[in-house]
C-alpha cells in the first residue's frame, strides 16, 4: 500500500505542478462552455412548426410566411417530434392526418402559433393537445459534451501519452528495477488520473452552472455515477495505448487518430440526427457517445439509472475489455 500511495502522490503532484497543463485542463472547458453559451444565445425570429402527415391544402396556416415548417417523414416517431416541442426546439406540431395540433403550455411562441393557426381558414377543424416542458438551450446539451471531451483528453493523454513518455525516458525501466509491480504502478497512475478528472469535471460543471443554471431533471448522484463510468472507460482505453508504444510521437499520433473521430462523432458539439446511418453506427461504437446519451438523459429528461441500462452496460463492457487488453499487452519496456 505504501508504494501505491507514494506513487499516487508523486503523479498527482506532477500534474498539479505542471502549471501549463493544469490551468489549460481547467480553463479550456470553462472557456468553451461560456463561449458557446454566448455564441448560440440569439434565437431566430422565425417560428418553427413540425408537420406530421401528408399535408392539408385546406389549412391556410401552412402557408404562413413567418413560420418555418419542418416536415417529418412517416418513419419519424411522433414522440420524438413532440419532445422537440417540449424542449422548445419547435413551437408547435401539426398532424394533418388526425387533424390535431400540439402546443407547449410554457412557451410564449406556442401561444402565438396557436393564434396564427386557429384564426386562419381551415384551422377551426383542428383539435388542440398540450404538452409542457422547459426550454433546453444549446448550452444545456453542451455541458455534458465538454465534460466528456475533457475526460477523453485528460485520460488518453494523461495516461496513454504519459506512460509512453515514462517508457521512452527510462522512468519505467528504473521502476522495473525496484520491487514495485506493474499492477501497483498502473493502479497508482490510474487512480491519480481518475481523481483529477472527476474533480475537474465537477469543477467545470459547478463553475459554469453558477452562471448558466443548467437544466437538471435527474439525480446528481446518477450523473456522478455516469461520470465515474465514463472516466473509467477512458482510463482503460488510455492504458491500452500505454501498454506497448515505445515512442511519444507514435503514441501522440495514434491518440489523435482516435480522439478526432470521437470528438466529431460522439455528439459532443452537435447532434448526429439526420446524418448517414453508417456514421450513426460508428457513433454508437464510441464510449463517449454512451456517456453523453446517459448524462443528457439524466439532466434533460430526468432519466433514472434503470432507463440507462444499455448505455451503462456498454460503458462497463468497454471498460472491462480495455482493462483486460491492457493487462495482457502491458510491458515495462
Amino acid at each position, binding site marked *: 500500500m505504501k508504494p501505491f500511495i507514494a*506513487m499516487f502522490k*508523486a503523479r498527482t*503532484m506532477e500534474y498539479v505542478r505542471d502549471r501549463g497543463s493544469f490551468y489549460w485542463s481547467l480553463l479550456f472547458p470553462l472557456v468553451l462552455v461560456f463561449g458557446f453559451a454566448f455564441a448560440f444565445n440569439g434565437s431566430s425570429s422565425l417560428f418553427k412548426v413540425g408537420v406530421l402527415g401528408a399535408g392539408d391544402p385546406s389549412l391556410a396556416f401552412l402557408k404562413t410566411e413567418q413560420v418555418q415548417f419542418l416536415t417529418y417523414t412517416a418513419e419519424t416517431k411522433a414522440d420524438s417530434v413532440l419532445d422537440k416541442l417540449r424542449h422548445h426546439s419547435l413551437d408547435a406540431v401539426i398532424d394533418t392526418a388526425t387533424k390535431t395540433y400540439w402546443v407547449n403550455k410554457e412557451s410564449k411562441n406556442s401561444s402565438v402559433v396557436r393564434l396564427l393557426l386557429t384564426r386562419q381558414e381551415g384551422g377551426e377543424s383542428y383539435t388542440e393537445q398540450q404538452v409542457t416542458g422547459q426550454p433546453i438551450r444549446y448550452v444545456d446539451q453542451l455541458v455534458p459534451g465538454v465534460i466528456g471531451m475533457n475526460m477523453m483528453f485528460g485520460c488518453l493523454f494523461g495516461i496513454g501519452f504519459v506512460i509512453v513518455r515514462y517508457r521512452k*525516458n*527510462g*522512468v519505467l*525501466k528504473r521502476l522495473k*528495477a525496484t520491487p514495485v509491480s506493474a499492477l501497483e504502478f498502473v493502479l497508482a497512475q490510474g487512480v491519480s488520473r481518475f481523481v483529477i478528472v472527476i474533480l475537474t469535471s465537477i469543477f467545470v460543471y459547478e463553475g459554469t452552472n453558477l452562471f448558466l443554471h443548467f437544466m437538471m431533471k435527474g439525480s446528481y448522484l446518477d450523473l456522478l455515477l455516469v461520470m465515474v463510468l465514463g472516466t473509467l472507460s477512458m482510463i482503460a482505453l488510455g492504458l491500452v495505448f500505454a501498454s506497448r508504444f515505445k515512442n511519444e510521437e507514435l503514441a501522440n499520433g495514434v491518440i489523435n487518430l482516435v480522439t478526432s473521430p470521437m470528438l466529431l462523432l460522439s455528439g459532443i458539439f452537435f447532434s448526429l440526427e439526420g446524418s448517414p446511418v453508417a456514421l450513426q453506427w460508428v457513433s454508437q461504437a464510441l464510449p463517449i457517445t454512451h456517456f453523453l446519451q446517459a448524462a443528457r438523459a439524466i439532466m434533460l429528461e430526468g432519466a433514472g439509472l434503470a432507463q440507462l441500462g444499455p448505455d451503462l452496460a456498454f460503458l462497463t463492457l468497454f471498460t472491462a475489455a480495455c482493462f483486460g487488453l491492457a493487462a495482457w499487452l502491458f510491458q515495462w519496456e
Partner: protein
Amino acid sequence: MTAIPIMRVEGLKKRYGPVHAVDGVTFEIPQGVCFGLLGPNGAGKTTTIEMMEGIVTPTEGKVIFQGHPVGEDFRKKVGIQFQSTSLPEFITVKETLELFRSFYPNPRSMEQIIEICSLDDILKRDNQKLSGGQRQRMLLALAIVSRPEIVFLDEPTTGLDPQARRNFWDLIGKIKAEGTTIVLTTHYMDEAEQLCDLIAIMDHGKILELDEPHKLLHKHFEGALVRVPATDSAAAEEIQSANLDLTLKELLGRGVNLEGLSIHKPDLEDLFIKLTGSSLRV
C-alpha cells in the same frame, strides 16, 4: 575480501537476431569487492550488467545470487544506477527519495542517504533542474536507498567534469566501506584503477581477461613502455622494455633521434589497447 561469491554468472549469452551481444561469459564476484567491467563501446558491458540485474533476460546461461538463482527477493537486495534514466518531473529530490524509500521494506533513513550522497543543498530542487554531477549523485542515492547488498553502476561518471568525477569516487568509496559489493562499468581507466579490486576486460561479447589490476599488468607487461615518436623516415614505435638502460643504448646505436621520446609505467589503458587493439574512448 572473502572467498564466497555474492554473484556468479555462468555461460551468459544474449543474442539480438544475428548479433551476439554477449557471447558466453562466466565469472564470479566475491562479496564486498568493487568489480569493474571494462570495454570499448559495443563490447557488451551494458547487456552483461543488465542481465546480472535481471532487467534483460539472457538467451542462455544463468545468474546465481548468493548461491541461488535470482528470485523474487532479488529486487529488494540490489541497487541499480542505469546509464540513462530520467527522473520523475515536477517533483523534488527529497520527494523522489521518499518515493523510492516507500518501495522497500527496510530503507535507509533519509538523513543517512543525504549524508552519504551529499544531497543537503539540493533537497528542495526539482529533478529537472539538477546539474550533471548532482543528477548522478541523486541516481546513486536512489540505487542505495534499499541498503542493497550489491550495487550496479553503469558508466556512472560519463559526461562529468574531473572534479565531479572525483567527488563521485569518494561517494563510491563510502558505499564500499560499508561492505557493499559494487559492480561498475566504465570507459575511464583511471576510474577503474582508483576504484576496482577486480577488473574484467570485455570485447566482442567475451571476457578477455579477469584479475586484480596489478596482477594483470604484471602478467602482460614487464618493466616500462618506451614510445618513440614518428619521424619523416620512420613510423612511431612502442617498445616494452625490461631493462631501460639496454633499450636506450640500442636505440642510440640505431641512430634513433631521442627527442620526443617518452618512458612510462604501463597502466590499464596500455593493457586495454594491447588486448582489444582499440582506444577506450572510441
